């Protein structure tokens, strides 16, 4: 057992009586949304451990578990994700027994074909960085636009050119970039548990083996993109060169371009090859990882 697991168990033993009381309260029926909020907010650590515990069990039973910090952080991150969804959606399920509702919600998540993006290589600092970034992009427009910068080094103006966006969309892109630089990047790194030491290590790696580092980053990016692209609307599949050209020339599908091209390197390169609006004047996008916003 890892040192984290052991100390966690010891802490858990010390707090056992409190936990038993909390569990007792959570097993009782709550009738109103206010009661739900009150009971749940008093037991957040317990609920987080429970959700993380289920995720750990899932990884163990599917033969994907390994006793290390990266795995511990992974299950904690997904436990927090489930708990956040539980807090928001659970209010609409009253009257209910909160503990069992959380269990059922986590079980429902784990019953899906791919409940989360898991790959052993994505648990390295580089993998965690890319997974966290692309995973965030699936739910955040700021992170999505920031992908163009982190993966291909494009600035807001270049993004607007590359996506052939019109005037009304441009301020929004600048706003997305600004918010990401202000708070989004830092929060995302904290949420995925990437420390300053990890970041420093990545920077050193990039400086010493730039070509190899970017090659590895592209490999991992493609893996993460193929997983998180499923969170796009169902009607956003990859398009042929002719279809992209038609879309750009006709001027429709702004959201399609923004979402799909950020999450698909191949389509981005295809669209870039069209050379519309002077996009070809800029070097064709290729993976050059930018660690800072």
């Amino acid at each position, binding site marked *: 057992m890892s040192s984290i697991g052991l100390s966690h168990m010891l802490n858990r033993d010390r707090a056992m009586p409190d936990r038993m009381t909390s569990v007792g309260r959570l097993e009782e029926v709550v009738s109103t949304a206010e009661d739900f909020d009150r009971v749940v907010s008093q037991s957040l650590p317990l609920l987080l451990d429970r959700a993380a515990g289920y995720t750990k069990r899932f990884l163990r039973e599917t033969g994907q578990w390994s006793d290390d910090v990266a795995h511990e952080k992974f299950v904690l991150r997904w436990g927090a994700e489930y708990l956040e969804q539980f807090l928001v959606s659970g209010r609409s399920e009253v009257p209910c027994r909160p503990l069992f509702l959380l269990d059922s919600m986590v079980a429902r998540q784990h019953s899906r074909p791919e409940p989360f993006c898991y790959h052993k290589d994505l648990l390295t600092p580089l993998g965690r960085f890319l997974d966290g970034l692309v995973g965030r992009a699936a739910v*955040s427009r700021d992170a999505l636009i920031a992908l163009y910068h982190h993966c291909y080094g494009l600035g807001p103006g270049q993004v607007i050119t590359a996506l052939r966006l019109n005037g009304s969309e441009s301020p929004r892109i600048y706003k997305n970039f600004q918010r990401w630089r202000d708070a989004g990047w830092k929060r995302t790194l904290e949420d995925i548990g990437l420390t300053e030491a990890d970041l420093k290590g990545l920077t050193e790696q990039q400086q010493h083996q730039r070509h190899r580092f970017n090659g590895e980053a592209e490999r991992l990016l493609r893996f993460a993109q193929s997983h998180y692209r499923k969170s796009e609307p169902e009607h956003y599949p990859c398009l042929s060169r002719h279809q992209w050209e038609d879309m750009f020339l006709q001027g429709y599908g702004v959201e399609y371009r923004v979402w799909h091209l950020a999450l698909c390197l191949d389509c981005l390169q295809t669209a870039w090859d069209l050379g519309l609006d002077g996009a070809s004047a800029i070097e064709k996008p290729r993976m050059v990882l930018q660690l800072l916003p």
Partner: protein
Amino acid sequence: MDIEREFAGYREHLLNAIRTGPRRSGCGASDPIHVFVNQRRVGLLESAGAEASLQVQSQTSIDSVQLRSEDGVLLGGLSAPEYGFRSCRIALTRAAIELRVHNTPQGGSVNAVFQPVPGFWHRARRAWSGVTDGTTAPRPLTVAGSGGRVLAFTQVLLAVTLVGLVTDRLTGWMTPASPPLSVTQTEAPWAAPLAEVTKLEQQLIELSRMQAKVVETIQTQQQGMAQIQRTMAKVSSTQETVASSVLTVKQEMEQRRKGAGRDADRMTRVLMSKALSEQEQLEAEIHSLVIANERLARERAQLEQHNQELNKRLKTAGADVSKAVVPDIEKPVMAQQGAPSTPPQVAEAKTVPQQPPFLFWVTFSEGASQDSIDQWVRDMHGRKGALSEGWQAVEIVPPAEPMERFLDRLKQTQIVKAVRVSR
């Protein structure tokens, strides 16, 4: 140890993030809100300060609806029921979002309505513009709206009065003190009306009392309105539930009706086909029975005819046998007389088990006369039977020699053409 601390710090960060909830978002009220259905992004609620709505139809059942800000913070959500309606109101900082989910066996639908909450000054401005601007288009007057207008009007009136009063007082203070002069009202209009000021003060007090009353009334009205809205919401949700139940029941009834009709048709068809096949079987059986019956009747007639023939033959054979046997019986009787004494009963017993006559059929050669035939029969110690198709039946005492030899001997006879022992 460092790892443990790092891990504990990470856990604490996640817990804090959960505790902070939607407040973590750095987005403003004017920023769009992303709507996710079953964890897939389906659209945007772009408000720009006005009411906005988004409707999503799905062919699959809706499991969850989530609202996220541009920076990805989860603002609210709803867990959809397996079937039927569910709605909730998610209050944000400067707005509220009404979410409504409806799941049916055919799929689901989501309706999200963004409702900005207007600020106090916005409301007052609107109310004021409603009072002063007579040219504005008439709008449906609500209780809350009229209350707001009265409140704004009172406030404006109070403010004007206060400004007048303060100006009046300030003017009095700033003016250098001067000895009382006998002046006329037209010369110094501000100096004389102290009584008027007192009167104005009283009016002001009355006005503030009135305002307090108005505020109370408005508050009461607002409470009443809130109650009415709650009741309305309850009534509408109940109505929706009832409507959905009625719809479900109707659909079920239709399905059942259709199902029952289909079942009855199928059953009738099955029964009909079964009955038809049974009828066909019966007809076939009847037909075969009729045929069998006819055949039996024919066979019976043939048998009867044959029986009659046999009877006739038997009668004739009996007569012939009796004729032929009588001399033979006499002989042993006569011999008995010379034989050693045996009891007569035993002698009778020996004569009784006579062998049956041997019947065979012959055809005679052409040209054989009837006399020669009769002579041959007599030589054989036999008698003629029926004549059928050229075959003459002949009955004789069973020959002692073997059958084959007997038949060969017969065939060697000149007048016999062919012999057979069976018909």
